[in-house]
């Protein structure tokens, strides 16, 4: 097949406004702005109060993790990987640990499988609770953030009880998890889920039936279904466009094949529906957590014995391990050259697509007051772009 016969995507049309005409204003939103998710900035060209062009700028939180990891022993990288995505570090831990286990040929005990799944669903809930506060706040609904951040803190209490850490847990390690559940922990989990579920019902009533929220979010940031493959859109942003893809189902990793759930799918694909979908996924996470507590083995080992981590050499090879985080496909590409340090680690975060290519296209024609709400509706997180 010759070049040109393929289905090609036309380059995104960029507006070329004459900035000297006096008709336009260049305005920076971020990097320190309450309407920006994380440390990122948007260079907006506006006409009146409508955005006509946008350039995304990242790099404010670049810490060189991928480079640093090449210099360190495999086990020394654990304090680094969790810091790539602050609201949900556990997905990094899982992808990295699972990649090393695959390359090293290590099987983990069944109890560790369940505890990892529990940890990932708990952090999914915590991350969504932080997000929903931002989404409501972006449209002037600050009360929701106060409620949801309190609920998130209850989940962080659980993490503190389970792992000793509130934000960074370093709980999922090669071979399994770092520790078993403390006495009474599972009961605390169930009680906390009841509390959060009740609060989410209140949030649903107050936020999703609010006329102002509806007026501003409905119709905002429409993602056409054919963009999903074109732009590599994943997670709730893709499911909101009617594409029923969820790696928990599609890859069937950890204990997900043994849990009863179906991906939630929308069809309107605007900011309002995406937020409804995420609220639904929060209820779903609560349900999954209850299922895990019910089904997980109460006894048995939680960790496989590993070689001395200071002398641990991973056989040469490469792999890509992905997981469904709150924003979509999160993955670690790990290349080993047979030594005690990784040859290359590349992190695939969903924000790489959502916050740059998709955001730059969606924001054109949007009212300047709705830029923040649009960005939060994509649930972007810049540090995973910069790594």
């Amino acid at each position, binding site marked *: 097949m010759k070049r040109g016969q393929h*289905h090609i995507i036309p380059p995104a049309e960029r507006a070329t406004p004459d900035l000297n005409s006096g008709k336009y204003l260049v305005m920076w939103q971020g990097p320190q702005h309450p309407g920006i998710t994380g440390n990122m900035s948007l260079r907006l060209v506006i006409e009146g109060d409508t955005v006509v062009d946008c350039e995304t700028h990242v*790099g404010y939180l670049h810490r060189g993790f991928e480079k640093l990891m090449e210099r360190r022993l495999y086990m020394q990288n654990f304090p680094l990987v969790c810091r790539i995505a602050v609201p949900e570090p556990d997905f990094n831990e899982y992808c990295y640990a699972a990649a090393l286990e695959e390359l090293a040929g290590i099987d983990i005990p069944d109890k560790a499988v369940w505890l990892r799944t529990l940890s990932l669903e708990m952090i999914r809930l915590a991350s969504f609770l932080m997000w929903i506060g931002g989404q409501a706040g972006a449209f002037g609904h600050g009360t929701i953030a106060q409620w949801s951040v309190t609920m998130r803190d209850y989940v962080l209490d659980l993490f503190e009880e389970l792992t000793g850490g509130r934000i960074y847990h370093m709980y999922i390690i090669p071979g399994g998890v770092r520790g078993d559940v403390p006495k009474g922990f599972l009961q605390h989990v169930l009680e906390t889920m009841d509390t959060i579920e009740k609060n989410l019902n209140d949030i649903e009533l107050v936020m999703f039936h609010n006329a102002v929220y509806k007026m501003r979010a409905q119709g905002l940031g429409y993602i056409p279904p054919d963009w999903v493959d*074109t*732009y590599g859109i994943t997670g709730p942003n893709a499911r909101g466009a009617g594409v029923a893809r969820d790696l928990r189902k599609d890859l069937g990793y950890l204990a997900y094949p043994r849990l009863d759930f179906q991906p939630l799918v929308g069809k309107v694909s605007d900011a309002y529906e995406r937020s409804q979908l995420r609220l639904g996924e929060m209820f779903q996470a609560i349900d999954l957590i209850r299922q895990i507590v019910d089904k997980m083995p109460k006894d048995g080992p939680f960790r496989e014995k590993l070689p001395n981590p200071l002398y641990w050499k991973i056989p040469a090879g490469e792999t890509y391990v992905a997981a469904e985080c709150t924003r979509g496909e999160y993955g670690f590409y790990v290349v080993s050259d047979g030594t005690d340090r990784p040859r290359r680690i*590349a992190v*695939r975060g969903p924000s790489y697509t959502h916050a*740059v*290519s998709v955001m730059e296209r969606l924001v054109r024609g949007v009212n300047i007051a709705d830029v923040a709400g649009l960005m939060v509706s994509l649930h972007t997180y810049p540090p995973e772009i910069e790594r």
Partner: protein
Amino acid sequence: MNELATELAARYGARDWHDQRKDLASIWVDPIRIHDTLAWLKDQAGYVHLSFLTAIDNIERKAFTMAYTLRNHERGHSLIVHCDIDRDHPVVDSIHLLWGQAWTYQRELKEWFGIDCPGSPRKDEEFVLEGWDDLPMMRRDFDSLAYSQATYEDRPGRETADPAAHMKQKLYPEAPL
């Protein structure tokens, strides 16, 4: 999946198919055929999703190994397509017309490895780094430790900047350095 390997070998001379898992494989092609291989995989073989693309610096054999990771949702299968490009003249075809997010990865490749993808939008603009005037940072011959020592001052309160020696001193002060 062997049918796909055979098809790719016949069409594009692809070689060294390797099944890493039942849902993940890798294959190698010549760099001159990378664009057409990826385009065929996307348009004809159902590998419509570009998970990511990156490079590995194989400095020992003077090559950058490109890694394009695609996913076929229908088959539940991912494929990493590799090609080696000359490290001294790192140029590879742009795929920004195949996937709408590819230009961002290619912009990153230019900044982090010095790999050029001619025609890729905004590829010469700064991406993550600002005012960077050293070797591209992800190259193996860029020494991040030497760069840090030359650029930043040591943290006060430490007799040594070596973390291992510092922790040894802190935990076992009586032990000889």
